[in-house]
């Protein structure tokens, strides 16, 4: 094999490798960065809305120590209503964890289960399936609080 032929072969090989990597680069990357940015913005905005509601209740005369409870209830109401109208799923597709991590995600899972299983009846469907997603949050929260509470009582 003379040098010319060798160089040609090498060039073809390099071409192939380059093409391969180019194809890899053209493949859509997992949209991790976009997801993170959206989660930050949407989650931040949900909390700003919550802060507005919190400030409103405080201005209305609720002591600031207790204003958290009605704030959470208001946000739950909003999320439940948006779930009922079928808007929440569209928002959640863009917001990701920005809507799942705040209490909006909890409210959405309860409400969507309640509506979805309505067809199996109010008692056996809505009543018993309502917490089929959110139940694990309550269970593990309560178990954690129980263990910590017992330890703190014994210390």
């Amino acid at each position, binding site marked *: 094999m003379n040098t010319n032929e060798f160089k040609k072969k090498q060039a073809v090989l390099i071409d192939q490798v380059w093409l391969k990597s180019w194809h890899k680069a053209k493949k859509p990357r997992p949209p*991790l960065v976009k*997801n*993170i940015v959206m*989660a*930050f913005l949407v*989650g*931040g*905005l949900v*909390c*700003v*809305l*919550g*802060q*507005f509601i*919190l400030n409103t209740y405080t201005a209305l005369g609720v002591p600031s120590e207790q204003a*958290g*409870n*009605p*704030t*959470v*209830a208001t946000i*739950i*109401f909003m999320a*439940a*209503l948006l779930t*009922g109208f079928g808007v929440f799923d569209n928002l959640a597709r863009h917001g990701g*964890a*920005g809507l*799942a*991590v*705040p*209490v*909006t*995600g*909890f*409210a959405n899972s*309860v*409400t969507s289960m*309640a*509506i979805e299983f*309505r067809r199996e009846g*109010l008692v056996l469907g*809505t009543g018993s399936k*309502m917490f089929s997603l*959110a139940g*694990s*949050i*309550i*269970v*593990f*929260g*309560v178990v*954690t*609080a*129980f263990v*910590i*509470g017992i330890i*703190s*009582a*014994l210390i």
Partner: protein
Amino acid sequence: MGTYFTAFLIGGLICVIGQLLFDLTPYTPAHILSGFTVAGGVLGAFGLYDDLIQFAGAGALLPISSFGNALVKGAMSEASRSGILGVLTGMFELTSTGITAAIIFGFFMALIFKPKG
């Protein structure tokens, strides 16, 4: 209790942690959100979560980790008042609003709206 800026910043950052766990770990959202609740409870045991709420207001109050914190606070404060049985009686002292609201609104939405499909 918090400003709009700190609420946005801390609330957004907690959600970013959630998004990273969603995208980079094989765990389901149910696993991860349960983990947030447990983490909030553990931070609450040392009083750290209350500091975060003081700083970030709704930015720390709305993420589900706040639920774990409130459970722990209810159990611990009632236990210190009335002994070890207080762990049971005080558990939902602070979180009953959220759970009641979710049940009531979820139930009435199921009465009003029809399931899709």
